[in-house]
């Protein structure tokens, strides 16, 4: 058996990598991929603890996160394509998330 602490550590690293991608990249699609990495890390935590406590509710939550991620991806990519058609670029310095 792999202890749940290992999964927790793994998910923290994955989550931080995703956050890093959001904070430093310029391209909107890569930023969005990084968000998906963060969601995956959260899902992994849920499943690991659901297995630890033998609770079905952790898996249910992951199911909903997946549904929501699908909804988000539809809207997000529609936006990205729309902005590309207007501007011929999604290399977005305006999307520098650290600047107001």
């Amino acid at each position, binding site marked *: 058996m792999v202890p749940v602490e290992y999964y927790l550590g793994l998910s923290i690293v994955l989550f931080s990598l995703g956050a890093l991608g959001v904070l430093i990249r310029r391209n909107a699609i890569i930023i969005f991929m990084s*968000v998906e990495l963060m969601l995956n890390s959260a899902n992994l935590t849920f499943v690991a603890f659901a297995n630890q406590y033998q609770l079905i509710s952790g898996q249910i939550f992951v199911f909903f996160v997946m549904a929501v991620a699908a909804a988000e991806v539809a809207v997000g990519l529609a936006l990205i394509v729309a902005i590309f058609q207007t501007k011929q670029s999604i290399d977005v310095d305006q999307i520098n998330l650290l600047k107001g």
Partner: protein
Amino acid sequence: MNLSNASASLNAILPLVVVILWACALLLVDLFITKERKGLTALLAAIGMLASLIITLARLDLEAVVFNGMVTVDGFSNFLTVLFLGSGIVAVALSYDYLKRMGLEKGEYYVLLLFTVSGMMLMAVASDLIVVFLALELLSIPLYVLAGIATPRLDSEESSLKYFLLGSFSTGIVVYGIALVFGATGTTSLAGIVDAITAGSAGMGLLVAGAAMLLIGLGFKVALVPFHMWTPDVYQGAPSSVTAFMAIGAKAAGFAAILRIFIQAFPALSVDLTPVLWVLAALTMILGNVVAIAQRNIKRLLAYSSIANAGYILLALVPYGQSDVAADSVASALFYLLAYAFTSFTAWSVVIALEQVEGKGLELEDYAGLSRRYPILALTMTVAMLSFTGVPPTLGFLGKFYVFRTLLEGGFPGLAVIGVVTSLISAYYYLRVVVYMYMREGEPQAIRDPWLYIAATASAICLVVLGIFSQPLFAWASQAMLH
């Protein structure tokens, strides 16, 4: 649970069910409404929310815990439901003529508005983190789209993309926070979290980490400093009618989640969290008010003002861990939200009246001489600015008064002093708008749309009248305790 239980559960969330079904029906009905008559769609959307509002008002003292503890209907949720539905109806009134002038009329606008409102109403009743998460997304995703409704106008699209990317980033943080809370307690229900903490079976380190992640994620939604960077750009780029609704509804819904989660589930963590809340509130008030001084664009000015106001609302939450103050915390936060909603709508309706196509009419200079040509608009804007500053007898003054009183009860005089000083700083940029309107010469342009004028003057009158007779209103907010 048998069938009659299920119908009792649905009955408890009837206002929400009405709005959701109405939205789905409107989506179909809108197909048969010609492009020239989209006003009918607007009217139908408003009627749906009005029906839901009447149902809510008819049973204000309803209390129920349904759907296996995932939904709690109580005074808190009823108060906020009324606030959200009222905001939705005013948003329709502000949108109709604005969209026509800007050439943005689309029936789906109102459908998405109804979806957003239903997400906010769901947030008010959510008492399980699964429902909180779904409500957060149900209110955010339509708002992302609404911000970009002026496509192919670039500023609207960029605002929408920025809002979307930061929104989904904050969603990721919220979901991770919920995962950590689940890891610490083995449950996502707020009542279950409290039970696990009392029983001593919760992993406290994980729980604090989870609570911190939830605070950061929701802090993005309500624009607390240092999670506010997106606000000015998004507020400026989005169509004004959407911005107005975003500034009020989305912020109130974010605070609904923060209040419900922290006061109901995390009082035991207040030792760790109170200093964090203290610092966040102080930073938000100081930065929001100081940076607002430099703004010449009225939409950016109101964006920084909304950041600063988030700080004042957060003040009410700082002493949440003290059980004897918690009730006042909720009451003063709700009252401040209400005052903020009225004030913002008044200000935004004037902004919408003055805005011209292609983003013109939004600089401070465009307000010069407004009192000469449009005395009613100038007067309503003045009332809004006085209420934002916190001058008696407006509702804004009472909002700040109750918040500061809660702070003093909780024993945070230092923070209250910061609040008062930043309010004085804010007087500079709020009153500057008034100075422009009354003391400068200019040729302002505004439209004369009856619905907009009704909304603007009605909410300005409410600001003063409710400010003078605020006792019943505050008594209502005080009943909205969380158990």
